[in-house]
């Protein structure tokens, strides 16, 4: 049918693996925010969930690194990280919708990889855990390379999202679209724990205002300066492409130092 729900969410593994290290009020704000998104997603009547997401050397490495890979498996398993404190879960796929998306992208001159076997790490399993546990829906993962240099530009991610959005608006199903990743964080780096709150504020404002120009031109260097993990905001930029002008409402933003992440939750609605 169309896109009935859209949100952007961070997936810092500390939110499930070591939640107690965060200041209690920050943890509560993130958990309450995720509960709000979960409730609104459930109320939307979405039948299936397309997720713009990233991964962390789980399926791909430099011997074969796709810029974009669309999962069309019947089912996925995750998380791969035993320390994440998220139960091992079978996540159903939606191969029919995935095939529809892949075919439409090829027609549009955008050539993603596709895979019938993807393992899900915290990048997808943290949002699945908070949003779908106990109320599981089929998921179509769209993995963007936000990890290995060089990686697709903001413009390229935006165009991918725009073409997928066209397909979703024409499909028979009610689809929720989630972007996950970011915001500022630098896991494993010398700067681990540094959070570029100014980057996060500017980025969330651009998403909220559907400032396409700012999103499409966000440079690799600016993301890199906000930490290696900030490259994951490419998933949000793809979402902005898919939504074609929906505006956003911040559900929560917390710079959680013990989770080493600027944690953002935002929902999107059609412009009035």
């Amino acid at each position, binding site marked *: 049918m169309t896109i009935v729900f859209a949100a952007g969410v961070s997936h810092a593994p500390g939110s499930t693996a070591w939640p107690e290290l965060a200041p209690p009020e920050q943890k509560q704000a993130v958990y309450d925010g995720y509960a709000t998104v979960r409730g609104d997603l459930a109320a939307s009547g979405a039948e299936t969930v397309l997720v713009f997401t990233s991964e962390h*050397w789980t399926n791909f*490495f*430099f011997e074969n690194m796709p810029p974009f890979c669309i999962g069309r498996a019947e089912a996925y398993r995750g998380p791969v990280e035993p320390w994440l404190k998220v139960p091992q879960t079978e996540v159903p796929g939606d191969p029919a919708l995935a095939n529809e998306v892949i075919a439409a992208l090829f027609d549009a001159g955008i050539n993603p990889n596709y895979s019938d076997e993807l393992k899900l790490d915290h990048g997808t399993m943290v949002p699945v855990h908070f949003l779908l546990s106990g109320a599981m829906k089929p998921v179509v993962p769209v993995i963007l390379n936000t990890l*290995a240099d060089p990686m697709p530009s903001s413009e390229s991610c935006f165009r991918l999202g725009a073409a997928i959005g066209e397909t979703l608006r024409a499909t028979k199903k009610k689809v929720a679209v989630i972007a996950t990743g970011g915001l500022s964080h*630098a896991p494993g780096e*010398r700067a681990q724990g540094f959070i570029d709150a100014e980057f996060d504020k500017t980025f969330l404002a651009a998403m909220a205002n559907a400032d396409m120009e700012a999103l499409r031109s966000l440079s690799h260097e600016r993301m890199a300066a906000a930490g290696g993990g900030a490259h994951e905001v490419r998933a949000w930029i793809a979402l902005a492409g898919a939504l074609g002008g929906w505006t956003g409402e911040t559900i929560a933003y917390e710079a959680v130092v013990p989770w080493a992440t600027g944690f953002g939750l935002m929902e999107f609605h059609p412009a009035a």
Partner: protein
Amino acid sequence: MSAYQLQKLCRAVNSDPVSRKRYFEEREAFVGGFALTDDERRALLALDIDALYDLGVHPLLLRPFTIINGVSQDDYLAALNPGKSA
């Protein structure tokens, strides 16, 4: 220097149980299976975290690799010379 082989080794230890066992039980032979430069080989065998970082091992490969080697979060960050830029 791409550090491709060095990162490939780290990823194998991180994610492949057979490689991990070989890394711990017959390290020299296992490491010999990868085309490393002398600097890479030295840094790897010494678990010189600062050098591995500077040689270009991705932080999300290096941190899990050091966890498997029993390095705590505090020790990891202390080993990375904080005087350098990221």
